[in-house]
């Protein structure tokens, strides 16, 4: 990964004496990055940062840092969720299309547990500490996962998909309902806020930088950071700097997620998961309690989705059920896993980052920048744009309407991937499902005669 850290390919030559020298220095870097998972992820991030810089450098450092912060945040939260889904779908073949619902349960439970019992606005909460809220959110998502899995796993695999999709919509619509809100307020003393949603508890990372989270009163940590990077130094705005602080927290969670899931995958438990994905009857006939393992996997995965929901939406100030927890969110996460290659944890991280930056946020930013460069009237409709037969006019229309067109782009990319590389970026790798290195052949066995 030392090679991959060099953003400029030509700078670092093929210093490591590999057997067959790559064609160019860039190829050498790519080769080195492929061999190291961390190198691969860092290399991808650096490539995205380079593109972001290219897009915004004319607007100053603050814009560059801001765009990078947005892309990194989205990349990391998608990576977290993709990892949880990969455990269920990639490893075990459990087709959970209710990801959004489990995330919503996680973040809403956290909010209800942590919010003040007597808030200035919005629904009341239980006023418990944040760690309690996070554990409660994960627990609630896990519980809901178990409730969904217990009946569904007795049926054929496809029914799990239907059950989870239905459940995720039930969750969303319940959270939106004011009757449910009132019911919860009356029974447990904490409400959901119905369709208006609820404000999230203060982000503790903000308080690391600002006393009581108040702008203008930096802490001992905030002062030097703001001094060097903020108004006194590089001129990056404080919210962006705090955002980077939160990204450090997300990155720590991502590493922890990754390590736990890698260990789980590289174990006899991981072998059983893969065997269930490949052929349930075989796993069963070899003495594996398939249903128990499936329920365990489902519960672990849902708890992680709950945590991902907390880390993602809990940091966004306000959550509300309908724009945020539509089934669309689930499909985005699926796309991330598919791009990365289902069954590979590194692939899921990579898929999350690539999806968020290149397919989700990237087109909007590129579209905005390109529109700014075009000096043309935007035609009122697609037909007008087409009839004009002027590529510049058409481009103006396209970039002005990038949000809907982005889905066309997304669809094309998916079709391309499924057609050309159905296994995703890293799906062809052999992810060893054992706690020891299998390529190592014990010598004792051969001397046996």
């Amino acid at each position, binding site marked *: 990964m030392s090679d991959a850290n060099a953003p400029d390919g030509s700078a670092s030559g093929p210093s490591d004496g590999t057997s067959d020298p790559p064609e160019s220095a860039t190829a050498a870097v790519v080769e080195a990055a492929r061999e190291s998972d961390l190198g691969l992820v860092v290399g991808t991030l650096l490539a995205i940062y380079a593109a972001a810089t290219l897009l915004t450098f004319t607007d100053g450092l603050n814009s560059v840092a801001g765009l990078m912060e947005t892309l990194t945040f989205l990349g990391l939260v998608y990576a977290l969720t993709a990892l949880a889904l990969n455990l269920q779908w990639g490893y075990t073949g459990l087709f959970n299309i209710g990801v959004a619902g489990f995330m919503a349960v996680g973040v809403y439970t956290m909010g209800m547990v942590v919010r003040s019992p007597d808030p200035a606005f919005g629904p009341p909460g239980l006023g418990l500490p944040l760690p309690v809220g996070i554990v409660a959110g994960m627990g609630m998502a896990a519980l809901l996962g178990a409730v969904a899995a217990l009946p569904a796993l007795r049926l054929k695999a496809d029914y799990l998909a239907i059950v989870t999709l239905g459940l995720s919509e039930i969750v969303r619509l319940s959270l939106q309902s004011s009757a449910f809100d009132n019911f919860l307020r009356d029974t447990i003393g904490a409400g959901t806020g119905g369709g208006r949603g609820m404000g999230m508890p203060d982000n503790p990372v903000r308080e690391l930088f600002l006393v009581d989270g108040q702008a203008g009163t930096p802490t001992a940590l905030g002062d030097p950071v703001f001094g060097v990077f903020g108004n006194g130094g590089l001129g990056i705005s404080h919210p962006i700097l705090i955002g980077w602080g939160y990204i450090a927290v997300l990155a720590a969670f991502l590493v922890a997620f990754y390590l*736990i899931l890698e*260990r*789980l995958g590289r*174990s*006899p*438990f*991981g*072998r*059983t998961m*893969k*065997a269930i*994905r*490949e*052929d349930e*009857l*075989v*796993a*069963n*006939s*070899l*003495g*594996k*309690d*398939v249903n128990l393992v499936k329920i*365990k996997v489902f519960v*672990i995965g849902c708890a992680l989705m709950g945590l991902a929901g907390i880390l993602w939406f809990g940091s966004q100030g306000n959550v509300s059920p309908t724009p945020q927890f539509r089934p669309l969110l689930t499909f985005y996460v699926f796309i991330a896993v598919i791009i990365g290659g289902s*069954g590979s944890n590194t692939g899921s991280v990579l898929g999350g980052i690539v999806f968020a930056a290149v397919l989700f946020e990237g087109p909007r930013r590129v579209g905005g920048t390109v529109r700014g460069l075009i000096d043309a009237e935007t035609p009122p409709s697609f037909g007008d744009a087409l009839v004009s037969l002027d590529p510049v006019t058409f481009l103006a229309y396209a970039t002005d309407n990038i949000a809907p067109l982005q889905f066309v782009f997304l669809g094309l990319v998916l079709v391309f991937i499924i057609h050309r590389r159905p296994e995703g970026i890293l799906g062809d790798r*052999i992810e*060893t*499902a*054992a*706690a*020891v290195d*299998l*390529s*190592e*052949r*014990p010598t*004792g*066995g*051969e001397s*046996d*005669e």
Partner: protein
Amino acid sequence: MSDAPDRSDSGDANDATDVDDASEAVDVADANDAAGPGELGAAETVAATDGPGDEPESNDSAVEEAAKHIPSGPPSGTPPLRVEGLVKRFGGVTAVDGASFEVESGSLTGLIGPNGAGKSTTFNCITGVHEPTAGKVYFEGEDITGLKPYQIARKGLVRTFQIARELAEMTVLENLMLAPQGQLGESAIRAVTPGLRGGVVEEETALRERAWETLEFFEIDHLAHEHAGNLSGGQRKLLEMARALMTDPEMVLLDEPLAGVNPTLEEKLLDRVHDLRADGYTFLLVEHDMDVIMNNCERVIVMHQGSVLAEGTGDEIRNDERVIEAYLGEDL
């Protein structure tokens, strides 16, 4: 006749000779039928020489080195597998209609019958894939009727499948390492928690070695790192059997292990079965090919229209009027 030349002829000149030595040492009585599946006809008089008390503990330590865990064997006198009045109906169709039979300890028993005789359904009822409509299945004296497949496998009764069901996207080595029962690392907590993972790694190291040795025994060790889906049909059959053995079974049910296997590999597979049987494993073999059954099994059970038509040695079956009638037109 001496069995030594026969065995080295059929045994592919590989260095799995330890097993051959062992089986020679063990049972001269078995030697005739263990001799050569290649020799058609020679084995006709085989089964009679073979007593039911084929005790596993007579094996010497050379066999243990072959990394196969020798079955502890059932309590003496109890047949490992006993099926009583088994009935299985699918809607209006009665696939198995009151089948009853026993399999003797340490034997290689063949189960034959024309298409639709109910062989595979019987297999599925024994191994818990189907729940029998009526009747009982006993394994080592214990009623296992209606247990789940994994519960039956844990008791030491494992099966292979008629159409090989390899775990395609897992390597051959992973396929084998999946099989052993009660692995520490099957607990998710143990697999993840730093302090507890040490034991898992230790166990995995031993398991890896056993898996390699089993692969060598079946001569598919060169394929260890291949995805199982890339194997040929015959190699998959070998993999299935190797995987079944890794569970450390008492008894193995082989569902048409030779279907779609070329003659060379067929011989290799049968050799392995004979070697293992000499080590004390009990086998029940469903097969379509009459010659294979007649030449290799000391007891043969014939099923017809869902029930047991005849039972006996290969010779008895060959001359049984009812069997000839059931197989009318087939060359016995």
